[in-house]
């Protein structure tokens, strides 16, 4: 699986390079604009190599390759890209669009970075071949036609370690990465293609292929823990980070009891799905298991270094 994934990544990179060359601006410093600030609330700034200091972001501002977006507490913004994909950036976040190439007839390639905070990605047009990849300090998330939530940092650590499936692990609160697939699922209306997210850390890839499945990378050099079904309370806390203004608008200062009640049941479901980490098991860097691919279903198989299907060994 890893080999396939790497080949795909290489292909995407090659295509991006080719596209970059073909579309190279006349001046090296010219901005390659890829989208607009669709909504802005609170304290949101933008910085890049051409600016002397960060500038405030207002609705409608063009966003370009290399722009670093920062949001502060209770602040958020949404970037609408040319193919109508969306980056919903939550509070206390740092996000950058590193590369974006879009051809309405051929599709879209996107590479971004979530350095800190919360990010929700909605894919846009399904026309053509579309790829997206988001890098974090601990790993990377490959996204195919989906809605996916991603957290990096202290909140990722807090939320993940409150999940029974994850428990207490050695995490780095600057690098911890938490990912939840939101949809579309196979039962979605309108014939939407079911979404899929590949969460990779330390050369181990976990596949999220059902809404509500999550994975956690506790630190750089650690393998993802999961997939597991996120609890209702965990999901509500993720939502609060991505949409702080929406969360605060309820004025109740917390998650209602009805949401918390579902936590235990979801935790039990999580035990039935995929792999889990215990204690310090996040370091899956040995060659013995570097090609493991864990999935949300027990009948999936992994692939060895030669691409042959083999039973998935347990990750301990």
């Amino acid at each position, binding site marked *: 699986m890893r080999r396939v994934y790497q080949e795909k990544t290489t292909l995407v990179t090659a295509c991006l390079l080719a596209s970059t060359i073909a579309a190279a601006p006349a001046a090296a410093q010219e901005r390659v604009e890829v*989208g*607009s600030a*669709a909504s802005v609330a609170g304290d949101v700034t933008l910085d890049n190599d051409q600016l002397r200091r960060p500038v405030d972001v207002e609705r409608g501002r063009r966003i370009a390759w290399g722009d670093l977006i920062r949001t502060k507490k209770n602040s958020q913004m949404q970037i*609408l890209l040319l193919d109508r994909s969306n980056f*919903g950036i939550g509070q206390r976040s740092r996000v950058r669009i590193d590369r974006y190439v879009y051809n309405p007839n051929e599709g879209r390639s996107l590479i971004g970075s979530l350095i800190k905070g919360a990010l929700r990605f909605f894919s846009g047009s399904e026309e053509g071949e579309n790829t997206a990849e988001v890098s974090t300090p601990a790993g990377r998330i490959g996204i195919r036609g989906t809605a996916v939530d991603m957290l990096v940092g202290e909140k990722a650590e807090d939320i993940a370690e409150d999940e029974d499936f994850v428990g207490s692990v050695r995490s780095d609160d600057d690098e911890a990465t938490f990912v939840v697939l939101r949809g579309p699922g196979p039962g979605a*209306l*309108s014939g939407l293609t079911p979404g899929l997210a590949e969460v990779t850390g330390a050369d181990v890839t976990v596949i999220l292929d059902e809404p509500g499945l999550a994975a956690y990378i506790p630190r750089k050099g650690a393998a993802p823990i999961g997939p597991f079904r996120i609890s209702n309370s965990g999901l*509500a806390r993720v939502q609060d980070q991505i949409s702080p203004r*929406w969360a605060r608008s309820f004025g109740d200062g917390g998650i209602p009891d009805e949401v918390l009640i*579902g936590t235990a049941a979801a935790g039990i479901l999580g035990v039935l799905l995929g792999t889990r980490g215990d204690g310090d098991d996040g370091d899956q860097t040995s060659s013995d298991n570097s090609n493991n691919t864990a999935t949300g279903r027990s009948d999936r198989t992994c692939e060895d270094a030669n691409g042959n299907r083999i039973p998935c060994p347990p990750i301990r």
Partner: protein
Amino acid sequence: MSILLFRVFVPAALLAASAPVSAQSFEDLDALLERTADEEQGIATAREQVDRGELLEALATLERVLTIFPKSAEARFNHAMLLCWIDDPQGGLVEFERLDEDDYEPGALEQARATCSTATQDEEE
């Protein structure tokens, strides 16, 4: 207030799902953003996107509305319902649990919660 707006329009979306409309220029983006700067227009735009089968884009549109109008009862309700329709009933139910019964017609939230987990299958049949 037509809080069950999308439930009425989803069957139409199923028929029209083969005709997506994609932005190809900044002019297209600007026009879309203009329509979503206002609560009522934003919700109407999301409804049009549902009609075209663009459920993820409709969700994003409602999130733009909720960024500016976070207390919009109609946007809150329809956002939760759209999560159900993309087959994320857990996400939809988590959001429905936060809504206030007093903001909606009697029984509306109860009905929405009851149908959320089965909404996709019902519409497909």
